[in-house]
């Protein structure tokens, strides 16, 4: 029991709260009419969403020609944003796995929001592979279902096919984890609900949860199984995304380091996004007792670790490009990325991802909300540029110089990206509006633990 209260780790929930207090503190925002800032934020998010919807409409109705792509660069902002979003999505699942599988209790009060972030981010990510199809109306061709065409199945060798299944599985699994994790809390809200409609809706989704022993026993087992399945899955998803690039023949893509490098990058960017959101939630909802400085500190340490791994990966890539003796690889890494047309993006990537996060060594910075917020945002900018560098520099300048091109996005590209921010923001705002943003039952378990510990100490 002592492991929860060591000298280095301050208590996970502060303020010595009763169970009822915990419930009302956390459930409160979902029951109150939201504040004005919520409406403002929602309006902004909806505008972004509308911009995105317009861009998607143009894409589908007029064609992919409205994007900045060309004969050589077949993937641009679409896939950059896809990889970026799916990377962000990884953090939520990672938190859940830490919580369930590794029993890292400190993640309890963060995992719910992180999971919500995962769900919306993966939804956004999934949008791009669909939108980037030339004929989105035939998207069902990608599924191997029996048909009258021979039957003609699909190409199981294609990483894109793997990707579809990886994302689909991942989306389903993370939604399931999120939803089932929410069930006891929805029951709480149901029982606290005053209006009939609220009661019915929460009642419907809480699946008749009562918190009986039979419930809890199987629930815990299910959580462990899902967490256990999610652990390899979360590793595999970004691995497969990386394989999309790694199995190709394009210089700068065709490297075996890509899967681990992508996975770490994903966790890195996801944690950064969690940090951003947690700082905002903590500030706006005064949940300082649940999302403590120690939580943020822990995330920062993970970021520091990720940053160093990424830095190592960048250096390794450069080394291998030189050491392999492949002129194409050498060109891509040294003449295109480090010094050539894409050097600006390359150095932004290096500085944002490998250098600036080193500031987190400083305890002072790990204690400053503002500094952490800025760094977390910088990291995600850097991660976006990482994907930009990988995608564009490799495609725009590959084997035959005759097909070397430039690339620039169009307003439609930008619109869709903005739209995904709209979706994400709308989703998160709806989430904090209607769903307890911290797992109440988990936190109660912790407060209980805290009390036991305190009493033990007092003896």
């Amino acid at each position, binding site marked *: 029991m002592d492991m929860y209260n060591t000298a280095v780790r301050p208590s996970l929930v502060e303020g010595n709260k009763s169970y009822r207090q915990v419930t009302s503190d956390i459930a409160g925002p979902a029951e109150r009419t939201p504040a004005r800032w919520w409406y403002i934020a929602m309006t902004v998010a909806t505008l972004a969403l509308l911009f995105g919807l317009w861009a998607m409409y143009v894409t589908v109705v007029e064609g992919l020609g409205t994007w900045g792509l060309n004969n050589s660069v077949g993937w641009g902002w679409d896939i950059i944003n896809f990889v970026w979003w799916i990377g962000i999505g990884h953090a939520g699942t990672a938190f859940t796995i830490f919580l369930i599988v590794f029993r890292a209790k400190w993640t309890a009060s963060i995992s719910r929001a992180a999971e919500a972030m995962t769900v919306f981010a993966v939804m956004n990510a999934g949008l791009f592979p669909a939108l980037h199809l030339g004929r989105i109306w035939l998207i069902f061709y990608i599924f191997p279902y029996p*048909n*009258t*065409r*021979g*039957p*003609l199945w699909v190409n199981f060798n294609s990483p894109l096919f793997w990707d579809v299944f990886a994302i689909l599985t991942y989306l389903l699994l993370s939604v399931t984890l999120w939803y089932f994790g929410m069930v006891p809390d929805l029951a709480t809200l149901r029982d606290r609900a005053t209006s009939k*409609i609220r009661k*019915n*809706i929460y009642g*419907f989704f809480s699946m008749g949860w009562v918190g009986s022993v039979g419930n809890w026993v199987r629930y815990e087992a299910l959580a462990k199984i899902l967490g256990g399945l999610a652990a390899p899955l979360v590793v595999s998803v970004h691995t497969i995304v990386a394989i999309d690039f790694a199995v190709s023949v394009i210089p700068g893509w065709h490297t075996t380091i890509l899967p681990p490098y992508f996975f770490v990058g994903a966790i890195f960017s996801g944690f950064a996004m969690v940090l951003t959101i947690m700082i905002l939630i903590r500030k706006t909802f005064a949940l300082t007792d649940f999302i403590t400085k120690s939580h943020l500190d822990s995330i920062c340490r993970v970021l520091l670790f990720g940053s160093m791994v990424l830095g190592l990966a960048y250096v390794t890539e450069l080394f291998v490009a030189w050491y392999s003796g492949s002129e194409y690889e050498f060109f891509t890494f040294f003449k295109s990325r480090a010094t050539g047309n894409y050097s600006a993006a390359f150095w932004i990537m290096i500085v944002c991802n490998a250098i600036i996060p080193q500031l987190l060594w400083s305890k002072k910075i790990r204690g400053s909300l503002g500094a952490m917020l800025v760094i977390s945002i910088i990291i995600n900018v850097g991660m976006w540029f990482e994907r930009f560098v990988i995608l564009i520099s490799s495609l725009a300048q590959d084997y035959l110089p005759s097909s070397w091109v430039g690339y620039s996005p169009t307003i439609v590209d930008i619109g869709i990206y903005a739209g995904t921010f709209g979706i994400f923001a709308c989703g998160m705002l709806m989430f904090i509006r209607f769903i307890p943003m911290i797992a109440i039952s988990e936190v109660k378990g912790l407060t209980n633990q805290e009390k036991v510990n305190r009493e033990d100490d007092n003896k």
Partner: protein
Amino acid sequence: MQNPSELLRTARKAILLSCALLFLSINVSSNENMSALYQETEEAGQVLGPPTTDDIKRGERLFRGLISPGPDAASCASCHNTGLIDSFNWNPSAHEIALAYRDRSHDDFYQVVMDPVSAKMTEVHDSYRLSEEEIFQIKAWMDEFAEHGMESRPVITSLLLFILLFVIFLGAIADLVIFKKIPYKLIHLVVILVAGLFMVKNIAHEAIALGRSQFYEPDQPIKFSHRVHALENQTDCLYCHSIAEYSHSAGIPSTSQCMNCHVIVREGTYSGRFEINKLVEAYENDIPVRWIRVHNLPDHAFFSHAQHTGSAGLDCSECHGEVETMDRVKQVSDLSMGWCLDCHRSTEVDVLDNEFYSLYMQLREDVTSGRIDYATARDTGGTDCMKCHY
């Protein structure tokens, strides 16, 4: 976007038409066509005046047999259908006759009804005892009928059913989650399941059938019967579809080719003169006959009749079915890609005798050594995409 608007247009047309019909049945004398008709008949020197509403009404009754056209005589409508029908009718429909005689005089019409030339018609029309006035009334009705077209049957679209079920489906879910008016959850469950399954089934079914037209059997502008030509008169397929052996297309014979025989044959066994007259008319007026294509391969599939009737040695009936027994050609096979491939996977290819395959040394050896029983089209690339798609 095209389809909904088309649907809308069709619906609007239907509404307008039915309104017009209603209006006309009330007040026919105001119809301009009627006055034109009046002039025409008058010019023809008829004693009979312009048709009145009563004339038209009586004409219809006569045609439909509500007033007997003669002792033991079948009503006109029993042979000449007034509505759209699924089955094949050798006799011209009421509408076709109406169109054909719209611009012709009362005398012509009288002549053809009461004193027909063709054998079959004579036999049936023999028992008619119709006065000149009655014929006039029938024509009066038919002239009006020509304007309106065939009666369409009420169409129950599965769309309405689908929408209805969808609404019920949504309602059940809403009640289950929010309103909870119905206490028994079993009801919700059954409704949701049944409606959901139906919708899924319907969508899947329609999606598979999309672009397919197995059993398509349209009415042709001329009632050309393959049974009469190919079975009863023993005409070889290749006599008319002469290019099937050396072109992609089997070819629809030109009108002039039809006239090779029909220059002499002017009366059909079952159809009398009416159908053959259409052909002759088209020929004489240089108007090509607009046949309706029955077998439509999608544009992205390239098919060569020359290849299949040539080196593959297929018989026409293997794909087209027993066309010689069809009065109206029907698409027997579904012409799906799976259907093509089934044949390509199983049909034997004569790799040993056809010199073309002399380059396929491995395959020939496999066959001669008995490693495989015989070579199929698949073994010579018969399942390649580019066999058909380019």
